[in-house]
């Protein structure tokens, strides 16, 4: 769970750096932590699917981070990886805007 959580945070941080580049790293970190919390609330069948997609996504991005990580996930042809990116990004955006963005 812990390593999965870390990967979701990495993806969330990379998405927020692209979506709200003017934001502080601290606010992005807080939002990324919220993402991890939200992922645990998914219905269990969805959570299982997201877990698998997360493993695939990790394989796609390797050690890359930031914009490169996002671009790789965005372009990945593997099923589920695009949905994983979309889910983490939307959770991160909502968390960031609720916390810091209004």
């Amino acid at each position, binding site marked *: 769970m812990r390593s999965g959580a870390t990967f979701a945070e990495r993806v969330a941080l990379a998405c927020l750096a692209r979506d709200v580049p003017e934001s502080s790293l601290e606010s992005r970190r807080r939002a990324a932590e919220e993402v991890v919390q939200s992922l645990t609330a998914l219905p269990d069948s969805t959570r299982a699917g997201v877990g698998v997609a997360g493993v695939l996504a990790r394989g796609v991005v390797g050690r890359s981070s930031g914009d490169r990580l996002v671009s790789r996930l965005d372009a990945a042809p593997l099923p589920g990886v695009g949905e994983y990116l979309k889910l983490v990004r939307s959770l991160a955006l909502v968390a960031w*805007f609720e916390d810091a963005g209004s």
Partner: protein
Amino acid sequence: MSSYDVVVVGSGPGGSVTARECARAGLRVLVVEEGERVEPGAVPAYSLEQMRRQYRNQGLTVALGRPPIAYTEAACAGGGSEVNSGLYHRPSAELLDAWSREHAVEALTLPDVEPWLGTVEDRLQVQGRAGELPPASAALARGAERLGWAGLDVPRWAVPGPGHPEKQTMTRTYLADALEAGAELACGSRVDRLDVHDGRVRGVVVAGRTVTSERVVVAAGAVQSPALLQRSGVPVSGRGLAVHPTVKVVAEFAEDVNDPADLATYQVKEFAPALTLGGSASRPSLIALALSERGWSVAGEPREAWRRQQVYYAAIRSRGRGRVRSVPGFRDPVVTYRLTREDLALLRSGLARLMHLLLAAGATRLLPSYAGAMTVTTNADVAPAAAAMTRSRAALMSVHLTGTLPLGERRGGVVDSWGRVRDVTNLWVNDASLLPDAPGINPQGTLMAIAHRNVDRLLRGDG
């Protein structure tokens, strides 16, 4: 918790009507509710905090399919009434006649249901707005007027409050009445299954313990009710899930329109019941979410632009249907939905009509919420922008869930015309599952009137 005359599973609108009427009739009533009790107004409307405390799975539920449809269910004392927009419609005579005919439902014409609609309207203080329309609603009204389209500011179960109107939720009305009449409410308690033996239900199982009851009424909502029956061994296919698939557009105006704590209550009904155009919750986070569906354009939006932006929707009556399946070993059911080709075509035409409406209303820029959508600034952009919403690009959602346990006398139906489960003598369903189809209007008023009608029958002993 010990032994009761009636156990009601779920405290949403269906469950609260049932509990109130049974308690007022002098029965010992227990309402078992999985969610927590949150006082109305204690958390900001449409916020992340509300999602966390009052929605099932924090609102992150989705019906799988092509495209998937995101849907939300409340999970709190009062159910959906605590989080919803409070928009009230009476069902039309045509709708009720069609349901009666197609599902062989007894006594479901408008004259049958009308007295109960009146009871609901009185208790919930359903009323129209006094005074001017707020900007987000006024925009819809202006657009409709310019195009000569019919529309209305929809009445609500809300009374004027110090700031925003105070919605007359179940915890403020029916559930409060039930408790006053002696019903007990157990929040934070999930019914894992019903204890069914030899065609009778003996009670409900909560955390491994059985609470016994003479009768059980399941009112857990259109997804959870069939799932609970399935977990309890009652033969239920879970097919028939009917929703209003909805597509969204972010509209930008020259002036401020956004009230993050409320939404546009005006609806355009020119193409009803097939299509309804209206306004959605538009907190900055929800605008960002709608924009994120389009691609990586959120970064380009000026941070204060949300004040001039508002999310609007086109919602359709769908021919497609979904299914709820409880899977052994999983706590949550798996939900699927098949959108038909006609549904997709109707959604596209709904999106186009919505964009024409918003341009007529004076919007300077429209940002349809689907993958890769172009920005629309003139009427000439509308057709290509709507046509480009394919199955794989669409981002759909729904908050109206119905149809999984339709009432009626049709062969093979799980419940009869009054919500009684055919194979289990003392078991009833009384919630949105019973509506045979998504009605093309906001459904809570209709389901509450039907719930009244059913519990009246149950109490008269004819059920």
